[in-house]
């Protein structure tokens, strides 16, 4: 996957449909974004009402949805209708525009992140909307807007549990965003670029061969330590066990989303799932070779899907198995442990790369 040779998705659409000029570019970009957005939302639609239930059930010795349609798949439309048909309860004293905006900001920020993710090719189509110079920085910037939404929800809900959830979200994001980004910087040192396609391309070389199998130089293999660090920080970033403390059901009821119902609740859930997938996508791009995998390059998108669903599975596994840390422990792990380790990793990587190169 050379950087220059591969056509981005909007360009492909503009060319295929023969849309000329600036207007053509805009229309093509909108179509491409709609397609990518809908693919991601479709993942969420499958994950939320169906896959999550099935996965959790498998982890906890249950059966879960199996009555509606084959494998219970029709629970997806059933749940959608059910959730949207519920009454939207607006509690007294909520801070109106903020309260309404929060559930939109969360999924929007996560969806925006997908604009720079190279999701690989499916046939002639390259699922990659934009490939700016600062791709990696941009994706982190988008992803961290999410915590703004959590604070908005927590603050505007006029509920103490929501407030606590919002405050926890800020503390948690501050503590984990830095190790996350510092660890990602070690990848940038390896790849020598912030451009997403460049990072993917840098992982294509063969690291070593074992019994005829080529092990690619995915950064998860090159620097497993950074991978584990990044994975952990990412779990905290997306707020999943053992770091699900902004929600912390059984402690602060449901944290920032306590007062949300109906469509707003769905939007929050949607946002969380998209966020999990975005987390998976970032990990796939930075550590797991992007869309790389066995087989021709034209099915790369499928490998990418496998990787982000693999990450989703991992979050659900953690959720079923791991206890939740306490807020002060979380902050301590973040500032005293992860931060130090991530800087050590960064310095070490810089030294190694400097000596070798």
């Amino acid at each position: 996957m050379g950087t220059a040779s591969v056509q981005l998705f909007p360009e492909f659409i503009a060319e295929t449909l023969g849309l000329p000029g600036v207007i053509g570019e805009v229309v093509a970009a909108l179509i491409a974004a709609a397609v990518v957005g809908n693919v991601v939302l479709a993942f969420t639609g499958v994950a939320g009402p169906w896959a999550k239930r099935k996965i959790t059930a498998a982890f906890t010795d249950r059966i879960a949805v199996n009555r509606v349609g084959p494998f219970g798949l029709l629970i997806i439309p059933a749940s959608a209708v059910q959730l949207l048909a519920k009454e939207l309860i607006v509690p007294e004293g909520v801070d109106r525009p903020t309260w309404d905006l929060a559930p939109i900001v969360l999924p929007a920020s996560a969806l925006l992140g997908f604009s720079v993710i190279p999701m690989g090719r499916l046939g002639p189509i390259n699922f990659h909307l934009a490939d700016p110079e600062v791709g990696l920085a941009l994706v982190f910037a988008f992803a961290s807007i999410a915590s703004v939404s959590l604070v908005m929800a927590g603050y505007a809900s006029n509920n103490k549990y929501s407030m606590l959830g919002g405050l926890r979200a800020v503390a948690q994001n501050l503590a984990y965003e830095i190790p996350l980004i510092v660890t990602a910087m070690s990848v940038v040192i390896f790849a020598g670029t912030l451009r997403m396609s460049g990072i993917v391309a840098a992982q294509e070389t063969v690291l070593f061969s074992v019994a005829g199998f080529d092990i690619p130089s995915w950064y998860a293999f090159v620097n497993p330590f950074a991978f584990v660090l990044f994975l952990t920080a990412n779990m905290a970033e997306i707020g999943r066990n053992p770091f699900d403390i902004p929600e912390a059901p059984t402690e602060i009821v449901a944290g920032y989303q306590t007062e949300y119902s109906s469509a707003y609740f769905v939007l929050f859930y949607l946002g969380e799932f998209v966020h999990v997938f975005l987390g998976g996508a970032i990990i796939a791009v930075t550590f797991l070779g992007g869309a790389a995998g066995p087989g021709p390059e034209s099915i790369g998108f499928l490998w990418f899907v496998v990787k982000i669903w693999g990450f989703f599975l991992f979050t659900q596994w953690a959720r079923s198995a791991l206890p939740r840390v306490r807020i002060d422990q979380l902050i301590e792990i973040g500032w005293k442990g992860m931060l130090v380790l991530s800087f050590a990793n960064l310095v070490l990587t810089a030294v190694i790369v400097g000596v070798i190169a």
Partner: protein
Amino acid sequence: MSLEAPDTPDTDAADEHTPDELAALLGDLVVDRDDHLNAPGFVIRPDTVQETLSVLKEQAGYDHLSVVTAQEYENRYESIYHLKKFDDPTQEVSVVVPADTDDPVSESAEPVFRTADWHEREAYDLMGIEYDDHPDLRRILLPETWQGHPLSMDYDKDRPQIATLPEHANPLEDHHKDAKSDTMFLNIGPHHPATHGVLHLKTTLDGEQVVDVEPDIGYLHRCEEQMAQNGTYRHQIMPYPDRWDYISAGLLNEWAYARAAEDLADIEVPEYAQVIRTMGAEMCRIAAHMLALATFALDVNGDFTATFMYAINDRERVQNLLEDLTGQRLMFNYFRLGGVVWDLPKPREEFFSKTRDFLDQLPGSIEEYHNLVTANEIFQMRTIDTGILPPDVAKDYGATGPVARGSGVDYDLRRDDPYGYYDELDWDVVTEAGCDNYSRLLVRMREVEESAKIIGQCVDLLEDWPEDERTIQANVPRTLRPDDDAEIYRAVEAAKGELGIYMRADGTDKPARFKIRSPCFSNLQTLPEMANGEYIPDVIAALGSLDIVLGEVDR
């Protein structure tokens, strides 16, 4: 962990005192004698309660105020302080404090025993006795606005009651030290995912840290004592205990009533029935402890935790055995005065093999829990050294059961005040010295193994029991009328601790006073001790480790 090991028993305290020695010790404090079937009773003046209890506590070693019973006679009110020793609960003494009908005031025991706080509030609430020197004499089970005291004789039950909702009350206003303090008041419950029922915790927070927590109970008060007083001894009371600790601890609760009533009416239970009772009760204990483990995992891990479902699955297995034995899954109503209602299910071999199968797979499950829960570093980080309950505090609050044993208090009525078939069997009392949330969980998990040992031995015994000696029921008169004015307090080791019942007979076939000593009620009282200064998640964990059932707290 810097807590000292629990005090070694004071030799003076362990000494047994004859009633006359006690009377001599108390000297002038004793006005009269009013012996109960279980203990000598000393009548004292209402203004010498603290003095009397101090003497008994410090000089005679009665360090366990089990319960405070309040009742009304035609000519007086009466508060009874049932005292025991943690080292030897068979040594009991009752301190009887009469109070005037027109102006029922009596001195509070709270400065001597912290646990008297809630017990006296309950006595005030339901009976109307006022306690001088009580730090906070308010209603506890009924709403603040309730008119009258429902268990007193002049209570007008037809009077309409209005329970207002003080919607705009600011609970911070009066009890806050400093107007500029930036603490936050938070209602945890009555409907909250972690309150295990309808419990209301009035919590004051400083950031995420708990400054003060005050449990507000009574949402599930169902007049259990009153209902029992309206039932006949023989059959009408037995179904109620199932409804106290309704988390499958039914047989353990039934045993509390059975033991008290059998001792009151002098009924001998056939040995065969005792073995069945012991087996059934321990099955209930496993079921109850499994649920405690499951919900504790829920509190610490969050929802969607595998541990919850695993533990519920194991509970389901023992629940199936209980269903085979009693015909019921929740409200067993299996015990009868003088025995049990029916013999083991037929074919017996099938029941035995099912039980053995359960016992065989149990060690595997326990190991899995240890892998999944107790060995997990995050879990240990969360539970070790949080929710500390030092042994002397536990005793002061009358904490019993796994809560006390998790603080190293070696107190188990099955061994210390034997009943049923326990003293014939080989098993151990489990204690842990950690005093924290982790220890309390560990005690429950190890107790499950001990219970399994007991069940295994019972199955062996029952299997070889000669067919012609399988008497499940003693001869009990159709109508029981225990002697007039006979009084008894008897307790058993229920799933949550010492479940005791006080009964006073008045010559009829119904008890004149039926008082329930709920272990959860006393255990819950320790929550502020564990919670203050900790973080919200620790309070939730501490509450989970207390393993309360609101049905038993509120009765």
